[in-house]
Structure formats: structure tokens, C-alpha cells
């Protein structure tokens, strides 16, 4: 009963906030701006559900197919590095592009973001390779040594 009341209260609170947000947007934005916001909202769903999610799906699928030949930890490390690299690209590639286009002041986007992003990819790649090598040398070798001993 308490749960039901909490759910009703949450729905009412949520509807009130949704209404307030839509109302504020309606009175503050011109029809043209309102339409543009809706374009952005629909575009966000298309970009996520139509591009990013299927790309992630394909990568995980390939990882799963490779699972028969490659250790799961190695696949997890590569997938993790790709995910981190992808998130950094989504966040900071626009920064690189805006700096190329130009800014209103020299203290806006003052850093060499293209170089930093490049260095980040290299560091991420090296760290991933090092982690894979470490895993293969230590754990896989230990496992190989254990297996003959088990058989004996």
C-alpha cells in the first residue's frame, strides 16, 4: 500500500514537472525555437538508437564471436578501451572542431585539444596493450603450467 502511494506521488510529481517544463519552454521559446528543440530531441534518439547503440552492439557481437579463440579478459579489455575511447571522442572531438572554427576570445578553448586527444588515444592503446600482455604472460602461463600438473 505504501509503495502504491509512493508510486502515485511520484507520477503526480513527475507530471507536474513535465507540465512545468513544457509550459516554460512554450512561453519562453518562439515557435521556431520550439520546433528546433523538438528536432534536437528526435535527433538525439535517432543518433543513440540508430547509430551509437547498433555500433556498440556490433562490437560486442564481434567480441562474443571471438570468445571461442581469445580469452574473455582480453576481449573485455579491448571492448573497454574502445568504449572509453568512444566516449572521449564524443565529448572532445567537438572541442577540437570548434577550436578549428574559431572562438570569440583567446582564453576560450585555449589548449591544443587535437594533440591531447591524439596523445590520449596512444596512451589508452598502450595501457590496453600492456594490460593484455600482462594478463597473457602471468595468468595464461600460470594456467598452462597448472593444466599439465592437473593431468599428472
Amino acid at each position, binding site marked *: 500500500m505504501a*509503495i502504491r502511494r509512493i*508510486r502515485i506521488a*511520484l*507520477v503526480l*510529481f*513527475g*507530471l*507536474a*514537472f*513535465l*507540465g*512545468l*517544463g*513544457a509550459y*516554460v*519552454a512554450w512561453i*519562453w*521559446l518562439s515557435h521556431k*525555437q520550439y520546433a*528546433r*528543440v523538438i528536432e*534536437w*530531441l*528526435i535527433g*538525439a*534518439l535517432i543518433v*543513440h538508437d540508430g547509430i551509437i*547503440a547498433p555500433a*556498440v*552492439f556490433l562490437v560486442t*557481437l564481434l567480441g*562474443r*564471436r571471438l*570468445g*571461442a579463440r581469445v580469452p*574473455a*579478459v582480453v576481449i*573485455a579489455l579491448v*571492448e*573497454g578501451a574502445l*568504449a*572509453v575511447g568512444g*566516449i*572521449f571522442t564524443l*565529448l*572532445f572531438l*567537438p*572541442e577540437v572542431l*570548434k577550436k578549428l572554427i574559431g572562438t*570569440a*576570445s*583567446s*582564453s*576560450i*578553448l*585555449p*589548449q591544443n*585539444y587535437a594533440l*591531447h*586527444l591524439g596523445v590520449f588515444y596512444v596512451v589508452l592503446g598502450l595501457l590496453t596493450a600492456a594490460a593484455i600482455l600482462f594478463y597473457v604472460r602471468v595468468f595464461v602461463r600460470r594456467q598452462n603450467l597448472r593444466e599439465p600438473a592437473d593431468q599428472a
Partner: protein
Amino acid sequence: MQRLLYGFRQALQAPSRNPRTAVALGRLLGAAFIICFLTGIYSHFIQDPLPGMQFLTRPVWLYQFTQGVHITTGILCFPLLFAKLYSIFPLLFQTPPIKGFLHLLERASIAIFVASSLVEIATGLLNTYQWYALFGFSFRRTHFALAFIIIGSLAIHIAVKLPIITKYWRKSTSYDDDGNLVPLPEEPDKNSRLPLPDVGIGITSRVFAWIDKAPPPKSPRLSRRGFFATVGVAVLGVVGLTVGQSFRPLDVLNVFGPRKAGVGPDTLPVNRTAAAAKVLESATASDWTLTVSSSELSRSFTRAELEDMTQYQVDLPIACVEGWSQMAHWKGVRLSELVDSVRGSKNASVRATSLEQNSIYAVTELEPNFVRDDLTLIALEVDGKVLDINHGYPARLIAPARPGVLQTKWLSKLETF
């Protein structure tokens, strides 16, 4: 179509994609959204207060802190939101897609939540890059309105998912001894009775058969740990490599922040330049004066006259709504003494007008507690040098715990009301 959706859903299954993962991430994301909402509301109302609203002047770094937290938490939301969406992606292909009116409302509320969240954080980030041309709408107004829509749809989402949230709140009761998820007893998966698409019927069936041949992950624990480790690295990376723009001790790590401490005229960043504000001539005119007026008296001060008044020195941060901030050492005249010089009331507010034209921030207002604060100055110097024109020469306002956009530069007029 039902089999196709089911096939997609099955293909997307992974140990890290389960209700417990979604709940664990949802808790973090919910907390992050609430922090962003509250700090954002504070920033909004300190700029546009409702009648009767009053704001604190201490600690002096209050706005620096709240806005730094706002932007940093906003950046943190990217990996958390992507991880959350990853964890629930198979649900996109649930069958039947719509089970009834309530289910339609549920899916609609999720679509609104996802879309508004993505737009809110994406435009928020682009705003810190000052890439306004992409928007086509007023950023500030849209950001404010979408914040309410996000919190509203989040509340509805929590209401709908409350049984699942309570069931999987604790890790200890979410998994069995082998690390497998304990299913919800009241909602058996009806899809499990559906046969997989037959091999040989078409391309889709062949693809699903190819996927189905792939071995599932051997250890669900390993898969989940790998997933959370990835999320953790991404969070640490995006936050650690930007947070220095808001929190100076971490400046050395700031390689992706849109602002860098110490970069700008007189080593202090600038958002709006004198050229952009079109004050290059008016601010350097030899006949510039600062007019101070109350209902009883009006006086005009040249810069030399201001310099002849008692000078005070304060350490206050410039804290931008875009999250960056930097502490600086300011020297100038106390605003309260200027107000007293025209017999302004002790309870008077002050309207500060800039030489700047066509800007919503050309006129700003200070409530009485800011006017009477000993740290509120009409600054003439910063960090031991005469103000650079881009920092507001010949005189600018600097007050504790106020957003940078309200620290009016290129002052021309102060009026009590």
C-alpha cells in the same frame, strides 16, 4: 516481427545487461541529475531572482563551488548515461512493443527522459565550447525547461520501475551463489516460450543463427566487473581531465577543459572581450566617468577620483556559469562607500549599468546584502595591475559568491533603488 524483435533481444543479452546493473547505474545517474538540477536552479535564480529571494554572500566561493559541481557532474553524466542505456538496450526490442495504454505511457516517458537527458548534457557541453550556432534556440531557456522535463520523466520512470528498483537495490539479494541474477518471480519472461527464428528462411535468420553459435560469456561476474571497470575508467578520465578548470589543485590534469587557469589577459580567463562588447572606444574615452545616484543625490567620478578614495584589497574568484573559475586579487573602492557618498539608503539595492550595448547582462542588480558587503568592490586593479580592458577597464564590479556574468564590466552607472 515478434520473432525478429525477440531475436534482437536475445542477441543483445549479456551478464552486464540486467536489472541489477540498471538499478546500480540508475542510482548514480539519478543522484547526478538531482545535483545538476539543484545547482542549476541555484545558478538560474541568482541571475533572475523571484521577488523576495535572497542569496548568501558567504562562503565567497559558494557560486564557484556550486557551478563547478554543476559542470563537472554534467560531464560525469555522459559515461553514466551511456552505461545505463547500454544496460537496458535489449528492452528496446521487447515484444509486444506496446502491451497497453499504461505501457505506452511508460515507454513514452522513457523516450522523453532519454531524449531530453541526451540533449541537455550535449547542449550543456557544447555551450561550454560556446558553439551556439548549432543550437537554433536560446540555450539558457531551453536548458532550464529541459531540466524540469528530465526530473519529471525521471520521477515517472522511478514510479514505474519501483518494484524492480526495490528488488535489485542491494547486490547481495540480486545474485545467487553462482553470480547469476535472481529473476523477478512475479514477471516470468513470456518471450522465453518463443522459438528462435528458423535457420535457412532468410538473411535475418541466418544472422541470428550465426550470433547464436557464439559462446555466451563464461563468467557473468567477469563480464559485469569488466563493464563497471570500463564505466569507472571513463568517469575518472572525463572528470579527472577536465575538473581542473573548476578546482585549481587539479589544474595540472586539465587537458580537455574548455578553459585553463592562467590563460587570458593578465593570466585571468575572459569570456566576453571588449571588442565583442563594442566598448573599445567608450571604455578608453578620456571623459569617462562613473555616475553614482540615489533618490537624493547624483555624483560623477572620474577614474582619478575613484583612485583617490580609500582603496581596499580583496581575494575573490571569477566564477563563470560555464564552470571555470579562478581566484584573483582585486583592488578598488567599496560599493557601500560609493552608495553612502550619494546618501543612499542602508537597505538599498543597486542597479549596475555597463557601457556594453545589446547584452542581457549590460544591466545587473545587487541585493542589499551584496551592496553592504565589505568585500564588494568597484575594482580598478586586478592582481597588482590596472584592469585590462578585457577585464572591465576602467572600473568593474566584483562581489563575493556571484556568477561572473553579474560581475559587471566597463561600468558607467550605479543607481540605488
